[in-house]
């Protein structure tokens, strides 16, 4: 093996490189020790190239700065020179040695390099190979997010199939009456998107269709869909959930229940669309928010939009009872200002208001925290408090793909800040309302983020895998399912080998290389090349010797 040391332009003064190289050369199996001033520069690359090509070495150790800085560069270089990059072992003698102590650290540096040598002796090559991936993306749900995503992916040349459970596209866009504060209303937005989708050859729409089963992994998911009573299977490179949310009238702390005078936002929108059907124009309409759920971003936006729509279309007096108005989305502060300017009255309460029906009207009694007085309102209609919940079938679809959800049942795996739209399973994404209370601006951010991730994954048409880097020894495997349950990425499956023998099989495509399976396997049947038990123990055994 060859060893390359770098003294970082002579700056690592507390390490005696000549002593180290002298000692290391005596070690068994070491062909040469090369001390360079700057391995990361062109000169260093030339040194590595010429020595690898001229001397007969089958693996190498680099002792330099942190692998985080230049590991990728050397992996590419080594691969170009015809040596398998997995045969490269690394000692971090700058950040974690020279720079972390002021005294002479020659002995520590030598020990770190010997740890790397110990590991390098046991490294085995891992083949890298490009495998083709399907450039077709399945989008589950044809609401705003699903449609917009299809249009954006199409611009990058990726084909999409939208599967929509309902008979029409549009989802919640069909249930909105006005987008005040935006230049374009929901119906216009929907018709523009529909036209774009109809004219787009890359987008295929399947309405009244459902996903019934998913097999396989990223690049080649095999999805069974049911449409018009018939099931058929198709292949997709990635799957995006844009299944949205549903609203439900919150259980209210009062004697009244939704009925003729207590209505949902959807009832109100229907009323606004056909005001001529009303017996008489309602003179007062009340809205109530935040009764039992403080997380009311979406209901707040609908209430503000619908309050303005009522002022426009019916001219009724509008009162909004709320706890703390949530104006944390783009443009909602302006929406609130506009509503106040147009005569909508906001009553802020601390304790949930009392409500009852009286003579065909709804009476709301609340204590206004700003006035400090009791307010009694008799209104013709009360638009009830709603909350956003995951769509029906969210859980079933999630368990079909083995992806997780948050405490409210919305899709979310892992770290919401680092990987907002990615699930733990490679090639499965979530966007929009199915991830929680999400307005259009937030959903658009999701879509942009998902488009980039999907394009990076499927755009080139193939993806590079490391063949059997993590591998199950089929003779040792007892098919106990421990690894299958532990794998956070759903990358392990049980494979039937013969009539009486099954074994776990790890997909190179879906594996993210965490090594959890190798740690949990009770039979020690899983090896992780580069971090195998033997290789890690070889590092351990060198310490202090």
């Amino acid at each position, binding site marked *: 093996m060859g060893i390359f040391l770098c003294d970082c332009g002579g700056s690592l003064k507390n390490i005696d490189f000549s002593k180290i190289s002298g000692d290391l050369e005596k070690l068994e199996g070491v062909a040469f020790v090369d001390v360079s001033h700057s391995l990361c520069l062109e000169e260093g690359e030339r040194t590595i190239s010429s020595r690898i090509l001229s001397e007969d070495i089958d693996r190498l150790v680099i002792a330099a700065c942190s692998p*985080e800085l230049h590991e990728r560069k050397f992996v590419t270089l080594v691969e170009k020179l015809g040596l398998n990059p997995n045969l490269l072992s690394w000692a971090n003698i700058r950040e974690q*040695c020279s720079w972390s102590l002021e005294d002479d650290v020659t002995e520590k540096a030598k020990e770190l390099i010997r740890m790397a040598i110990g590991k390098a002796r046991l490294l085995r090559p891992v083949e890298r190979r490009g495998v083709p991936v399907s450039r077709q993306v399945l989008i589950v749900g044809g609401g705003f997010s699903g449609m917009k995503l299809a249009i954006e992916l199409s611009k990058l040349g990726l084909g999409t199939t939208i599967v929509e459970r309902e008979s029409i596209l549009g989802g919640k866009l069909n249930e909105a009456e006005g987008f005040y504060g935006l230049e374009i209303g929901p119906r216009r937005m929907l018709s523009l998107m529909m036209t774009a989708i109809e004219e787009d050859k890359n987008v295929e729409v399947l309405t009244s269709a459902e996903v019934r089963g998913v097999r396989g992994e990223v690049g080649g998911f095999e999805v069974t869909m049911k449409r018009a009573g018939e099931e058929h299977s198709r292949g997709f490179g990635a799957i995006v959930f844009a299944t949205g949310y549903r609203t439900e009238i919150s259980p209210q702390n009062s004697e009244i229940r939704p009925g003729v005078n207590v209505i949902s936002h959807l009832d109100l929108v229907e009323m606004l669309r056909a005001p001529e059907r009303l017996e008489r124009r309602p003179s007062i309409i009340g809205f109530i928010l935040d009764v039992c759920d403080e997380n009311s971003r979406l209901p707040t936006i609908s209430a503000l939009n619908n309050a303005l729509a009522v002022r426009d279309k019916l001219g009724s007096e509008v009162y909004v009872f709320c706890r703390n108005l949530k104006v944390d989305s783009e443009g909602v502060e302006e929406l609130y200002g506009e509503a106040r300017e147009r005569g909508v009255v906001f009553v802020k309460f601390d304790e949930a208001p009392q409500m009852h029906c009286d003579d065909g009207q709804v009476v709301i009694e609340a204590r206004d925290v700003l006035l400090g007085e009791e307010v009694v309102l008799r209104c013709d209609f009360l638009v009830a408090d709603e909350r956003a919940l995951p769509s029906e079938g969210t859980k079933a679809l999630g368990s079909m793909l083995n992806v997780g959800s948050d405490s409210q049942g919305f899709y979310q795996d892992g770290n919401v800040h680092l990987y907002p739209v990615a699930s733990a399973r490679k090639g499965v994404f979530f966007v929009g309302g199915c991830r929680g209370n999400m307005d259009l601006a937030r959903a658009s951010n999701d879509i942009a983020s998902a488009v980039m991730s999907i394009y990076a994954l499927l755009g080139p048409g193939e993806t590079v895998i490391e063949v059997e880097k993590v591998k199950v020894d089929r003779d040792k495997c007892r098919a106990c399912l421990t690894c299958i349950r532990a794998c*956070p990425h759903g990358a392990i499956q049980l494979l039937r080998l013969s009539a009486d023998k099954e074994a776990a099989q790890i997909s190179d495509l879906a594996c993210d290389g*965490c090594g*959890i399976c190798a740690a949990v396997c009770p039979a020690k049947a899983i090896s992780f090349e580069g*971090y195998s*038990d033997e290789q890690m123990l070889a*590092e351990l055994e060198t*310490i202090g010797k």
Partner: protein
Amino acid sequence: MSVGRDNRIIAFCCEKSAYLAADRAGRMRLCYPDNVRIIRVPCAGRVGTLHILRAFEEGAAGVLVMGCQEGACQHLTGNLRARDRVRYAAALLREVGMDGERVKMVNLAPDTAEKFVRAVKDMAEEIKER
């Protein structure tokens, strides 16, 4: 078995958090005890009870398993599994009459070099006292 005959602290560091925190500590020239030896792992969840116990068998005086903050693991449960294994290893150490405090789980973010240094110094103190 003579515990800690060479006074080393073995730190298994997740390459996505603790390893970067250690690099950062170096870049900030924060000095920490020189008896620490870092073993890079792809995720704290890769570290098994076997590795922890073998470290002691090879003469380590203390073992740190360092991973991401809880809830921030790229592999969802890797750091939680590591935490459970550390507890289990500590129980095994106590069972054979050793000090369970010599193995610890540390959760830190990649930019928290100070936390890395504090954890290492705390362990070094812990060892000295015994």
